């Protein structure tokens, strides 16, 4: 029966090749545009480091001036001052794991080099970084907690930097020079499958960071604070000096620039951590710090990523546009299918007069719709592939090919979910578009039509 219906569908498709093609084109284009944008959106929303993203929280306590504008979103709130971050990092808390991070940079050379110096973006952090974020190693390991306290000159480098400097060899134990200080490599990262740099709150997707080094070491050699520093009014004129030079003062100041990440696995521990923060701020208030009313945040990586994405006005515009397009295409498909099926009125009348049940006809045309939808979906899939490649090309062009393709292209990749969604949406929307036309044509009364023949 199905084979027979498919055969009928095929014959019918070939009877009106022009309109059938138009219907397929309308569905394919709408689907192509929708899938191109939705796939990017889905990739953008994927959890930065997998499911654990929900258990890692950023600690924020409002230590701004009294007259600063009030903030109710963690996304806008500055990070912590060095002293607060260090206190919470080193005190006994419900957190299973914790680390601080901030960005810095330096020029990297090695002794006896045969290549030009490399500018490296570095992360000043703690030994906890590698455990809390499940960082994979190609060679060696992270440094020990001793190195954190003693400020040892040790570094972990990315495999990209390792390739540049040592050509993929195991470089553990070798020395590199950061600006003018020697440091020993203790580990080389493997490809780290994070979707964006969440740990510095930038959610940046271009380069991966090259160097990871103990925060105590970075401070002792006064590496620049390559990050936003939010100071209270009294310190604000010195912000630039705090970024570049004045390390002794910045670590004792009220300026906020250190991100503290904590891993909390239960609701209870989250609540406990929150009350710990509250107590801490109350204590500090008694000492004359934290001029504002208590306003603490403990939001996980997912919340921060969503806040970040919701600010991307251009992408939101594209998203709305893609839905609008899909809608217009669907309306068009309805019109075209109506034109197509209305031609069958006579055929329907004849078959009905000869005793064909309405349901049989409905099923037959439904199958025809499914065939149209499937072809449209396949064509739409091809179009969304072209669309994704095109968007990738536009992005690469727009950023002057500054970022490596490998880190950018993950946003523009086709995957099984795209294929599944495209087929599903394509076929379902064709059925939706065709339901009214086939209902209309199957409901004609045979007699008047036949009379005129």
């Amino acid at each position, binding site marked *: 029966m199905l084979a027979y219906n498919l055969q009928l569908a095929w014959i019918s498709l070939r009877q009106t090749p*022009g*309109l059938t093609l*138009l*219907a397929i*084109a*309308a569905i394919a*284009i*709408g689907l192509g*545009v929708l899938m191109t944008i939705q796939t990017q959106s889905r990739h953008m929303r994927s959890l930065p480091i997998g499911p654990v993203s929900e258990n890692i929280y950023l600690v924020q306590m409002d230590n701004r001036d009294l007259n600063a504008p009030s903030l109710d979103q963690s996304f806008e709130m500055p990070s912590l001052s060095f002293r607060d971050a260090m206190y919470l990092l080193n005190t006994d808390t419900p957190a299973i794991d914790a680390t601080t991070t901030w960005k810095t940079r*330096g*020029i990297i050379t090695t002794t006896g080099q045969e290549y*030009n*110096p490399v*500018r490296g973006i570095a992360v000043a952090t703690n030994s906890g970084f590698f455990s809390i974020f499940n960082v994979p190693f190609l060679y060696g390991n992270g440094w020990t907690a001793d190195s954190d306290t003693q400020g040892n000159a040790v570094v972990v480098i990315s495999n990209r930097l390792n390739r540049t400097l040592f050509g993929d060899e195991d470089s553990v134990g070798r020395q590199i020079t950061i*600006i*003018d200080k020697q440091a020993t490599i203790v580990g080389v990262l493997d490809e780290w499958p994070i979707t964006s740099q969440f740990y510095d709150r930038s959610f940046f997707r271009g380069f991966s960071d090259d160097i990871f080094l103990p925060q105590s070491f970075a401070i002792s050699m006064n590496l620049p604070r390559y990050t936003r520093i939010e100071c209270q009014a009294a310190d604000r004129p010195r912000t630039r000096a705090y970024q*570049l*030079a004045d390390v002794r003062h910045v670590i004792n100041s009220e300026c906020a620039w250190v991100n503290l990440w904590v891993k909390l696995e239960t609701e209870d521990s989250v609540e406990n951590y929150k009350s710990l923060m509250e107590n801490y701020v109350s204590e500090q208030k008694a000492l004359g710090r934290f001029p504002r009313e208590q306003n603490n945040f403990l939001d996980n990586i997912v919340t921060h990523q969503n806040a970040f994405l919701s600010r991307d*006005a*251009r992408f939101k*515009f*594209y998203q709305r*546009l893609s839905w*609008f*397009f899909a809608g*217009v*295409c669907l*309306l*068009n498909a309805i*019109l*075209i*299918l*109506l*034109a*197509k099926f*209305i*031609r069958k009125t006579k055929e329907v009348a004849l078959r009905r007069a000869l005793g064909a049940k309405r349901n049989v006809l409905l099923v037959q045309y439904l199958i025809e719709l499914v065939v149209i939808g499937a072809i449209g979906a396949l064509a739409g899939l091809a179009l969304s592939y072209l669309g994704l490649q*095109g*968007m990738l090309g*536009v*992005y690469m*062009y*727009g*950023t*002057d090919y500054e970022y490596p393709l490998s880190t950018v292209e993950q946003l523009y990749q086709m995957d099984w979910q795209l294929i599944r969604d495209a087929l599903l949406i394509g076929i379902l929307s064709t059925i939706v578009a065709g339901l009214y036309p086939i209902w209309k044509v199957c409901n004609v009364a045979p007699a008047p039509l036949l009379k*005129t*023949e």
Partner: protein
Amino acid sequence: MGIRPILLSFKQSKFFSLMVVLQVALTLAAVSHSVFSTNALLRNWSVPSGLDARNMLIERSQFFIDDINLDGVISRDLQQLSQIPGVQHVTTTNQIPFAADGISEVFKEAGTEAQRYLAATFQMNSSALDVLGVELISGRSFYPNEVLKGQLSPETEYPSVIMISDALANEMFGQESPLGKTIWPVRNAQPAEVIGVYTNFMTGQILNGIGKSYNTTIRPMEVWTPAALDPGYLMRVDPGSAESLLENVRDVIYQQQGRYVFRNEVLTRTKKRMHDARSSQAMVMAAVSVVLVLITAFGIVGLVSFLVRQREKQIGIRRALGATRKNILRYFLLENTLLTILGLILGAALTIGIAVKFPALSGTKFIHYDYILYVAIFLWCINLLAVYWPAKKAANIKPAQVIG
């Protein structure tokens, strides 16, 4: 044939008529906005840069070790760079054309209240005009001994002469000759005398949307400040050799230890970067417009085929009563035109409404009413084309076919 029967037929198929009108309206709004933004981009692309960017190189580097006496380094660099075969002229510079993103101001009088004129200030040596390849319109260029060299300090006495661009001269002094006039390159600081006016070149201030693209001044300075960006070099090279000289330039800079080159490129690349963000957006918008026009055309084809099919009998009767094929064709074209015009009027209102309410949406603040008209005419033509195919079919209906 009159319009009355067409109006009557609208009444009969309200839904379909409404669909056409709406679709044409939405298409016009979307396409108009993408044309606005593409136009804003193209206008920027087509403004003459005043520079022969293909034959210019830039080099920017930074010492990452302390205690460097840059005086010796700069004169060594200048000497070695100019000795590279193919390099014609070299100057130090604090800014790069097409990449100037900081806004600076100049003033016609001293005092803290003086009116400001937006202008990018370039610090270059006496080869400035040769490197830039701009022409002197009046006055003279710097003499080598006028160029201030060395480390800047709060006590530095700044050069007493300055050159300004034609555009800035016009804005500050109008018809008057600017030569011999005194201007203040920094508010209420040391003034300088205008000694020359040169043809305009582009600063890249388009980028920030506030600065003026052609307003520039050049001060005779070959200077550096500790803990600031080291001066960069701008070179004019033999025609066509720019790409091949990049490596030689980099090698010269890297001969000095403790140095990192972070930009070494042909100036065309800098120029491209200036346009990139907007052009990529415009490309997407253009692609979107093409797709939308296609969809609209498809929809019209489907719709008119449907109408033709529904009215086969009437058409047949008409033809039997003496209507020619031309009449039938005209009927459908006219019907579609009426609907399209309605859609276009609605769409124009929508376009203007969106542009006024959300100026940022299309990336431009400007409405060009004439462009809306062009887009409308274009859409009307597309719609006529879309109608033609099914209408032709209608015209070919033979009376005998349908009247049994």
